[in-house]
């Protein structure tokens, strides 16, 4: 595309886009626009194509978490029975609605809710609570586990495509406007471009030393999560990839000096700790490069058949495939990024990504021959973060890797 790129850094542009996005949402109702809540993994293209603003309560919750507001907000709803073992995003959100505290002045109320369960089932229940509260329709976009059975997959895609048409009908009912499929093709084309560039960006981690760490990826992920389907997202990732190529890759500058261990991270991050983790790991020459979670938005869209491509992409995310296939996806990252260690976080908040972590570890350690660290905590609730215990375990793990590489260098082990 021939559009001109703004004269600023990618980081500045990302800030500007985020600000505009939330400002736009804030005034949506005044301008007669509709607000739809949706899950991070969901066919949000349908909203952009129909001029509805998608809002991601999960994203807002991440902001609540990184500003360390979760404990207070969560406690306010724990009294009502939303217990501490529920998702910290949900508790942060429900607490925000009770105490009206938010790092960005809140998010607007929904006119419509979409819960895509390829990502998780929890969101359906959380959105069910919101749907009752705001008396707004909830559309459950149901994606049965994308099992490796040819016939099942064909049927699943058929089922999911049928739901896209149902969803379009629901949006037409909501707005009283006819849905425009040409516009959908255009939006999916923007999504395709943003996804390809986002994946290109993540794949920069294959360079040695890697110019980016998972922490960079997590920060830069936000734009594709909530703006994929817009030309701005495409521009942003173009700028970002160019910058990293020019400023880091071409100069051989890594995310950390003296990169020694290139690690895989399993699960979502511990949002309120990731800078600490980065620094602790860096002091051992270790850097986390990637995770399947960050790759959840590396879609591969084909705009010529937008309904089918949306169905195929959203049904097949890592959290909705069988464990063996998910392990293969992780091992593919191991190979492509030359990883030599993995930290597997058992996230109390996220049953959907955590529950089979022991089996996943077994497969991955067996196939790679590299030990993995499994530890339990919570992505958003500091009350479940044992500072000294986790630090000790991470240190012990890195020392194990040191010992292994020492023995390997001296030919003591294969």
């Amino acid at each position, binding site marked *: 595309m021939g559009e001109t790129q703004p004269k600023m850094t990618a980081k500045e542009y990302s800030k500007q886009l985020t600000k505009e996005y939330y400002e736009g949402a804030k005034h949506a109702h005044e301008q007669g626009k509709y607000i739809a809540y949706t899950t991070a993994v969901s066919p949000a293209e349908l909203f952009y194509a129909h001029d509805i603003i998608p809002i991601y309560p999960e994203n807002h919750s991440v902001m609540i978490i990184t500003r360390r507001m979760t404990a207070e907000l969560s406690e306010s709803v724990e009294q009502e029975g939303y217990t501490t073992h529920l998702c910290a995003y949900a508790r942060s959100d429900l607490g925000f609605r009770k105490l009206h505290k938010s790092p960005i002045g809140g998010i607007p109320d929904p006119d419509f809710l979409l819960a895509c369960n390829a990502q998780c089932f929890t969101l359906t229940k959380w959105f069910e609570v919101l749907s009752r509260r705001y008396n707004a329709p909830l559309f459950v976009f149901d994606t049965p*586990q994308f099992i490796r059975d040819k016939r099942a997959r064909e049927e699943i895609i058929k089922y999911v495509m049928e739901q896209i048409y149902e969803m379009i009908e629901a949006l037409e009912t909501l707005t009283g406007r006819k849905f425009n499929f040409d516009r959908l093709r255009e939006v999916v084309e923007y999504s395709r471009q943003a996804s390809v560039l986002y994946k290109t960006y993540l794949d920069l981690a294959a360079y040695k030393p890697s110019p980016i760490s998972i922490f960079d990826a997590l920060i830069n992920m936000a734009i594709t999560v909530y703006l994929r389907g817009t030309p701005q997202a495409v521009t942003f990732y173009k700028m970002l990839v160019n910058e990293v190529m020019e400023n880091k890759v071409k100069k051989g500058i890594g995310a950390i000096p003296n990169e020694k261990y290139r690690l895989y991270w399993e699960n979502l991050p511990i949002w309120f700790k990731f800078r600490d983790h980065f620094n602790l790991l860096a002091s051992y020459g270790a850097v986390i490069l990637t995770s399947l979670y960050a790759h959840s938005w590396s879609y591969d869209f084909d705009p010529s058949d937008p309904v089918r491509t949306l169905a195929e992409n959203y049904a097949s995310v890592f959290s909705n495939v069988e464990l063996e296939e998910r392990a293969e996806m992780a091992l593919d990252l191991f190979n492509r990024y030359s990883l030599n260690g993995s930290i597997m976080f058992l996230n109390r908040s996220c049953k959907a990504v955590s529950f089979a972590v022991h089996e996943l570890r077994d497969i991955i350690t067996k196939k790679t021959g590299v030990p993995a660290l499994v530890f339990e905590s919570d992505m958003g609730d500091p009350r479940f973060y044992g500072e000294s215990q986790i630090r000790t375990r991470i240190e012990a793990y890195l020392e194990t890797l040191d010992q292994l590489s020492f023995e390997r260098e001296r030919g003591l082990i294969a």
Partner: protein
Amino acid sequence: MKKEEVLETLKVIAHDPFPYLRSKRETGKKIIGSPLADVPSEMVYAAGFLPVTILGTNQPIVKASAHLPDNACSLARSNLELVLNYQPDSFNGFVFPQVCDTTQHLSDIWKMTIPSQFFASFLIPRQVDRKSARHWFYAETGRLREQLEDFSGKKIPDDALRESFRLYNEDRRLLREVYRIKRNAPGAISNRRLFDVIRSSCFMDPKDHIPLLRDLLNALEGGRAGDGNVKIVISGIVVEPSQLFDILDELKVSVVGDDLIVGSRMIDYDVPDRDDPIEALTERHFAKSPFSPIRDVGTRLYDHLLQLTEETGADGIIYFHIKFCESQDYDLPDMKRIMRDRGIPMIVLDTEYQSVTRSQTKTRLEAFVESLYGERVNG
């Protein structure tokens, strides 16, 4: 058989079905296990297998912890424990439904840790109010039929399906009859016995179960009438351990209705007579009462319970929450508020398969029951 004899037989099978299942296996029957909920037993039976609902274990968790974290729901953990540790050889295969994150992962873990001759995922729709849900259920049930046919090596004729529907419908009809007697004459059968009888149907060939139910009904006909006990609707998915029913009996509470999965939702919905048997199963599926993890229409999850409470004239609701069932956790705050607003007394008990804090539970229930008697006097 006499009433007590029948009840004892069913109670024994309800709580340890494995000797019965072994005897079936010795006759060459293959046993197909399925966790809750909504796997069409009729289909498995018509394929020549014995369908068994896996209802967990109350014995200690020993092996499951290495595979499933401690904050997985008690039902999932005890299901895995049962088959991994206590009954590793009791099943020939599994038809595995997925309704939530936990059951989806349990399915993956199960496939990797429990060797079996047959494993079929049964991916039920997690929504009920759109056409697509029906199309999907129909397709998935058809897929299940083919998988069962592949395993058995022979086709499932439509007539075999219809015969299976007839047997299971008859079994359910008789169970509803027992329940009806309990509702009208609470003294005729205890809460514990009633739910043991329902539970036994999860494990037995209807051909074995039906005669026992007939004997039981003959013996119950002359049952005692109303006993003046408080009338309760129980709500939730399962009531575990079953000793909780004993406590209800000790407190002179009469269950007059429930929305449990191992309860009314299992016995209230017959397969209708249709030309296309898969269509008949589909119709039955969507006739069912709400189930927490499945997105239902609007607020039907609560409306159904309200209606049940009203229809049965219950004095209050006892809600059984399975520890770490997040689906129920999300339902409860609003449910409590709705019941409070309507003036319907409700108590929530947090339950776990491996333990029952008997004295504490009893004390809480006692206070609740007393308050209900108080309401009766004052009301």
